[in-house]
């Protein structure tokens, strides 16, 4: 089962893991993205996340559904925070539950790779020098493209 949330509030990984558990789940992989201290140029004061409401939820649903279909996942969670965040704050959570570990790992990685390229969120960084928009990363483009040619590993 898929659950998607876009919210300002923080999330609790233990609670999300609990909500993905069932008698047939043997493996739960999670990813937490966290605000780092360093911006593209300078020491970071804050990070602000903006999104395209409506489209962002749809995009995450679509990525989660594709991950479910690709691997044999029993549950998927995606939580993306928006608004102003400070260093060490959580940004994003992805959780995948499966009978076996390889499917759970693949699911998380797949979702993060596509979230970086296919979900309408934008980051701006506040430093001593002012506010700058984070620019797109070529390696994120490459990471999501690599799935198109790669076969899913079965566990």
């Amino acid at each position, binding site marked *: 089962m898929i659950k998607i949330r876009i919210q300002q509030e923080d999330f609790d990984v233990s609670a999300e893991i609990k909500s993905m558990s069932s008698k047939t789940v043997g493996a739960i992989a999670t990813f937490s*993205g966290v605000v780092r201290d360093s911006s593209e140029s300078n020491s970071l004061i804050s990070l602000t*996340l*903006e*999104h*395209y409401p*409506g*489209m962002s939820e*749809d995009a995450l649903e679509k990525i989660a559904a594709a991950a479910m279909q690709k691997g044999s996942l029993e549950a998927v969670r995606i939580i*993306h925070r928006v608004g102003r965040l400070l260093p060490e704050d959580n*940004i*994003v959570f992805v959780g995948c539950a499966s009978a076996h570990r390889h499917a759970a790992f693949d699911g998380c990685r797949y979702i*993060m790779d596509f*979230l*970086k*390229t*296919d*979900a*309408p*969120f*934008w*980051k*701006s960084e506040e430093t001593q020098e002012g506010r700058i*928009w*984070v*620019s*797109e*990363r070529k390696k*994120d483009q490459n990471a999501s493209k690599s799935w198109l040619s790669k076969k899913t590993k079965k566990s």
Partner: protein
Amino acid sequence: MRILYFAWVRDNIGYSQEELSCPKHVRTINQLAEYLKLQSEGHARAFDNMNAIRAARNQQFVSHDTELSDTDEVAFFPPVTGG
């Protein structure tokens, strides 16, 4: 047509959305951007380099040669940087 702007596209234009009826010759995303550039200096700055711009029609990513209809919701924004 409803037009939305995000991130530095919005910062350049100065507001996040507008409603407008385009002339008949404006049929694609690219033509809409060209038309919008005439609206203000901010619009001109925002659409100066279309390689740096992504677009969505009715909340789906689309290419710049996609045709539009007057009832569409069109959005312009930089490449996404979430996650």
